[in-house]
């Protein structure tokens, strides 16, 4: 479904991502793990067109999307849950979710999806009219994921959903991610918490200094001694 070939990202003269190639198949959850600064977020941003790639191509559902306008990516079916959540602080919870459905016109379906999100995250239902800026970090993460799902994407890009959250909250969020994946959503997940990511996903790529150094089934990677030494702290 997603084909990334020779993608490069540069900030000024510094190469953050050096020609990486990988793919995500329909219906699978793929984890992209690596240390801080390995180029994971840059990769995701380049796919979602928040950043311009310095080279290489991204194909989505067979279509080249490397030059699509950023605000059209969601129409193509790619939704990004950005690092740091990025909720609209002075919009209510309900309005934030409504923003997720900005590109959709089917009012009845949107209302259904809203109820579905409240089903995933009952906490959001409780805080429906509250301004998003007043939510806790975990609640904001829930909101960000719910908002992305409101667009009914074909591919969900998750950037560090566990970052800065209490373990209990991380658990809750990953529960929902698993449910969504089980419902057939294609997901590309970026995580520093490699163990959690590999436990949740089917396949994984390991990034180091802007390059993919290792790839394989998640279960295999979990058992790979190099991965265990470098990312699982063993």
């Amino acid at each position: 479904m997603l084909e990334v070939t020779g993608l490069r990202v540069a900030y000024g003269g510094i190469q953050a991502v050096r020609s990486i190639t990988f793919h995500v198949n329909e219906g699978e959850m793929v984890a992209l793990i690596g240390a801080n600064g390995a180029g994971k977020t840059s990769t995701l941003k380049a796919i979602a067109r928040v950043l311009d790639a310095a080279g290489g191509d991204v194909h989505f559902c067979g279509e080249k999307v490397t030059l699509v306008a950023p605000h059209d990516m969601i129409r193509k079916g790619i939704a990004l849950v950005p690092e740091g959540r990025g909720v609209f602080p002075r919009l209510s919870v309900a309005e934030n979710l409504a923003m997720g459905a900005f590109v959709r016109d089917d009012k009845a379906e949107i209302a259904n999806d809203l109820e579905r999100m409240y089903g995933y995250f009952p906490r959001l239902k409780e805080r429906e009219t509250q301004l998003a800026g007043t939510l806790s970090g975990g609640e904001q993460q829930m909101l960000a994921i719910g908002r992305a799902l409101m667009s009914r994407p074909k591919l969900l890009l998750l950037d560090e959903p566990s970052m800065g959250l209490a373990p209990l909250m991380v658990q809750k969020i990953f529960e929902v991610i698993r449910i969504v994946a089980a419902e057939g959503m294609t997901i590309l997940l970026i995580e520093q918490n490699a163990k959690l990511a590999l436990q949740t996903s089917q396949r994984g790529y390991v990034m180091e200094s802007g390059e993919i150094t290792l790839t394989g089934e998640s279960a295999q990677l979990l058992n790979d001694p190099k991965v265990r030494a470098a990312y699982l702290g063993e």
Partner: protein
Amino acid sequence: MDIFLQQIINGLVQGSIYALVALGYTMVYGIMGLINFAHGEVVMIGTLVTISVAGFMIKAGMPVMLAGMAGLTAAVLVCMALGWGLERIAYRPLRNAPRLTPLITAIGMSIVLQNVAMIIWGRNYLTFPPLLPKVDFEFAGANFTAVQVIIVAVSALTMGGLLFLVYRTKLGMAMRATSQNPAVASLMGVNINRVIAAAFIIGSALGVLAGIMVGTYYEIAHYQMGFMLGLKAFTAAVLGGIGNLAGAMLGGILLGLIEALGAGYIGDLTGGFLGSHYQDIFAFMVLIVVLMFKPSGLFGEKTGDRA
């Protein structure tokens, strides 16, 4: 008491005009953090276009009301285009430049527009065609005219309409989202350029409306009329908390009232030490005091939660 009432009416009318212009500043600032100093000039050009178009129509024998509507329509269209053009030509290329750069550009655009208007309409004062019938009222010893009533009513309606647009429509939600986090709004499918252009266009249309009110109220216009009006409206926006719509409205009305009461009573309050030429000082003193206790203005959000 009748004098006090009269001053309140004076202030309310003047304040309504300030509020409409202030909305233009605050909308653009709210969305892109830019103080569009050329906004006052957009107001001026709207007024002058109305004079030309309506004046021509009246000469051609059209009924006054119809000519007025034609003038208004032409002015709103011209200024919407102007607002859009300003953003497209002067500000968009500088979207990622340091904040000072577009500010200087804005001042530059203001001077350019003033001079263009001077070339087109000349240096002399122009008389605004009397679009509304002259009707005077008297209430509790205070005199006011139909024009004044209409100004306040139209301002209130327009502001109500704007609040509806921003808080009850999809475009409004997109505007608010863009003002809070443009990058994420773009991820949600919002075309940032379009939203910003919409803010400029709507702000300009409000400005034209204000300009036409100034025109019908004072019945004169001039290529430099936008400067002082813009400055006062900007002050009103800051007083209310720039970036906040309700703040701009209340700030405008407050400023109008402060000015009227200041000019009316400052001499008596200071025993003749300060005369009515200090009315601007009075207004700015209130501004300073407000900013001392509420640095972001009366209704301004704390700057911290700007994402």
